[in-house]
């Protein structure tokens, strides 16, 4: 079987999306009592679409991905719906859940050295999904993964099969992880900070491999990253997350050129620009985690445009000009946020309020 053949499936948003998450809420037990880590996540991934989930650490990105795999920590409380091609992931039987994990969805992790069993060969890891779950004969599985290794840029795949993970560099091993994810021909790939542990050139190659897999195989991809530029380059759409909530969803270019949420603007301002030797600016204040925020907007404490309403009432994600944003003042701030990328956050903005009371 030649898996390198590009599939003809094109992105098709008319039918049921590959993944639909609606008003997801997750609480996990911290010292015995449940603490919220995800407040409100609504997100769809179309078939063949690449979506970037962007936010700082602790914003609940990884937790969202884990919820999608139904791999939350023991004792987690989940509200809201997580659907894969219309089927509720929360309702799956143990057998169905294993089948779903085995062949519908695959995850690529940040640290391949920790996430691949160090005592088994690379070949064992690559064919495990095929041989153990899908019961493909070992020889056939090996042929398939060697071809996939070529596709991810490892030419001498056959030799690599008998090596151990510690004998491979991080970049090589991350390609192995991608090949392993592709081997079971899933519909959706979740990539959780797949390039964070890699050097810059390797980062670009890995992203290119993912992008190619998406286009050639009609894969849906959820790319989780804190790197806005990377997400913009690799994805069709971006979702910005803060403190357990999705605060803005837009296409990559739209977000960068005209952010609608103050936090998105802050993230844009904070990113380092190549060739500009300015002092790195950050979003003022400390990033909050899900269990720290009160009743109001999750970003209220750090927002330069905060009002009474922001503190008392949580804004919902709503549509605005073909995009989605969760901000009470999105219409007012439209266009005003743009210069933030060049000036100090909050300067010259209309209706600057005092400290939130």
């Amino acid at each position, binding site marked *: 079987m030649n898996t390198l053949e590009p599939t003809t499936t094109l992105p098709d948003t008319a039918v049921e999306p590959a993944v639909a998450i609606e008003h997801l809420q997750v609480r996990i037990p911290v010292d015995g009592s449940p603490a919220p880590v995800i407040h409100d996540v609504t997100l769809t991934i179309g078939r063949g679409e690449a979506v970037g989930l962007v936010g700082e650490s602790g914003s609940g990105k990884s937790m969202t991905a884990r919820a999608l795999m139904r791999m939350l920590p023991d004792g987690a409380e989940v509200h809201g719906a997580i659907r894969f091609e219309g089927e509720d992931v929360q309702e799956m039987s143990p057998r169905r859940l294993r089948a779903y994990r085995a062949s519908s969805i695959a995850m690529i992790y940040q640290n391949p050295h920790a*996430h691949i069993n160090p005592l088994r060969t690379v070949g064992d890891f690559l064919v495990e999904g095929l041989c*153990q779950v899908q019961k493909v004969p070992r020889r056939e599985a090996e042929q398939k993964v060697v071809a996939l290794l070529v596709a991810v840029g490892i030419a001498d795949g056959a030799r690599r099969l008998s090596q151990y993970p510690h004998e491979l560099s991080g970049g090589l091993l991350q390609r192995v992880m991608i090949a392993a994810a592709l081997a079971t021909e899933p519909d959706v790939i979740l990539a959780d900070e797949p390039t964070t542990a890699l050097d810059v050139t390797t980062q670009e190659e890995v992203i290119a491999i993912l992008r190619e897999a998406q286009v050639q195989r009609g894969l849906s991809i959820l790319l989780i990253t804190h790197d806005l530029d990377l997400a913009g380059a690799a994805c069709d759409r971006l979702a910005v997350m803060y403190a357990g909530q999705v605060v803005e969803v837009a296409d990559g270019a739209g977000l960068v050129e005209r952010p609608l949420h103050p936090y998105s603007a802050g993230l844009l301002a904070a990113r380092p620009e190549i060739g500009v030797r300015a002092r790195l600016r950050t979003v003022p204040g400390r990033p909050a985690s899900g269990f720290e925020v009160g009743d109001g907007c999750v970003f209220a404490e750090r927002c330069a445009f905060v009002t009474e309403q922001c503190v008392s009432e949580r804004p919902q994600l709503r549509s605005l000009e073909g995009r989605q944003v969760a901000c009470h003042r999105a219409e007012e701030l439209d266009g005003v946020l743009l210069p933030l990328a060049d000036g100090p956050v909050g300067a010259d903005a209309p209706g600057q309020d005092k400290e939130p009371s």
Partner: protein
Amino acid sequence: MRSVLKNVIGALVTILVASAVIFAAMQLVPGDPAAEIAGTDATATEVEQVRQNLGLDRPAWIRYFDWLGGFVTGDFGQSLQHRQSVLTLLKPRLGATLMLDLYATLLVAVVGIGLGVLAARNRRMSSTLTVVSSVFVGLPTFVAAIFLIQVFAISLGWFPALADTGDGLASTIHSLTLPAIALSLSWIALVAQISRASFREQLGREHVQTAVGRGLTKNAIFRRHVMRNGAAPIVSVISLTMGGLIAGSVVVERAFSIDGVGAFLVQSILRHDAEVVMAITMLIVVVFIAVTVIADLIQLAIDPRLRSRGVDR
């Protein structure tokens, strides 16, 4: 392969040092074997004649190398008490002790690791193990032996109180069951505790998350990603166990009147039979060091990182 060689050479050096220590120690054993053999009413010249015949008049270092050379070639010398070759005396007893120790090792490995697996996968089993094992870990071998004899040999009559290792494999195994259990109980508890902790630790590792995310069954995950990964501390503790079992079998052989190497060692010490004591302690040292080396080699076989050649880009 270099690390294997290093291990083996280290072991040989240790054995050599131990042999010198044992030989030197035995020179301190009180009593003059020549005088004893010559008899109480022998004259000084007769004793001297015996001494010459036995080669005991030669310098100690020559006798040491003589003895060591003999040991290496399987000649363990002559027992002066029994007037027989030590090897002849040891052979039948070696079989009984070997059976007992292997039986006990098997029990420790199978039951200990088995309980560890169950406890790592089941919360209720785990808390039961915590309570039960803390009692058994401290249980002295001879106390266990007495309790087992009282309950299973005398009250219930299921097993013999005096082990008979003579006729037939089945009856030997049957009569060695209580001794093996007495010998292994505290080690089973220890191995169960260690393996539970080790498997638990592996279950929390990232690579297990990866396996869960791939839709493997719990059994497959445990077999492929937990057992072998958690094996290193278990191998160490089992190698320690085998050393402990050798010492413990001296006690158990006394408890069940087994005519094994341990009982023979005690007997020979009380009779000042230096040749036998040297041979047996030397054997114990060799077995002991061999177990340690084998354990190290197993660790090498388990973990490819220990025999690594570095990153290959």
